[in-house]
């Protein structure tokens, strides 16, 4: 999977490494900004009220 991505990135090893870094940062950003805020209320840390609203 990762090998396949690496082979399909353009440029020499340095360019590939740079593009990989950008891709990783993009993935982390999407996770922190959209995926985790969605998933976090499914975890039990949010229930602090007694009427569950």
């Amino acid at each position, binding site marked *: *999977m990762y090998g396949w991505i690496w082979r399909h990135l353009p440029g020499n090893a340095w360019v590939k490494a740079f593009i990989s870094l950008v891709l990783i940062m993009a993935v982390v950003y999407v996770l922190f900004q959209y995926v985790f805020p969605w998933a976090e209320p499914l975890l*039990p*840390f*949010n229930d*602090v009220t007694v*009427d569950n609203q």
Partner: protein
Amino acid sequence: MRAVVRTVSELCITAGTLIVLLVVYVLFWTGVRADGAMEHQIDLLQDQWARSSARPSASGGDAAAGPEEPAPYTYGRPFALMYIPRLGFTWNKPVLEGTGTGVLKKGLGHYARTAQLGQKGNFAVAGHRRTYGDPFKDFPKLRRGDAVVLTDGLTWFTYRIDRGPYKTVPSDVEVIDAVPRKSGYTRAGRYLTLTTCDPEWGHSHRLIVWAHLDSTQPVEAGKPRALRR
């Protein structure tokens, strides 16, 4: 065969990384976000108070009559600041109207159907034990006699805790009644209830403390004794 093994191990590493990132998000990043959000709410409050104190207010003179009826709160908006010296001398958090998930990310939440600050009845507030800035992390340290001080920009309200943390189940809505049955109060009065979750990282129970209104003073009179070092 080799490709299959490689793909499976890559997937395992990916899943592990995802879990680590989620833990970082929950433990660290929600706190960073909540600190910023709470600062912002406190700024909003202070702006609001600065603007309203510029106008001459009618509440100046009659200290003996007690706090007057405040305007209804708006959902999701801050209306007071809470100080609990037991949780730390610098511990102060904004109190917002409502107890929705989005509200509790920005501060403590006031149960909308309970009394207003300083009024007759039960002023009930919920807060996170963990995550989102850990506002009520040290909740079990609260003891009888501890002060819970709130201000709405005009008046300081000093509540005194009467009962140390009381553990109950999440469906026990009685604890925020006007006169909670388990609290030991027998007559109607001006009470305060704080709720959070228990155990620290779980949601099977709730921790409750009850307090009564001990004293009030206008903000012009300076900080109440409980907040002075």
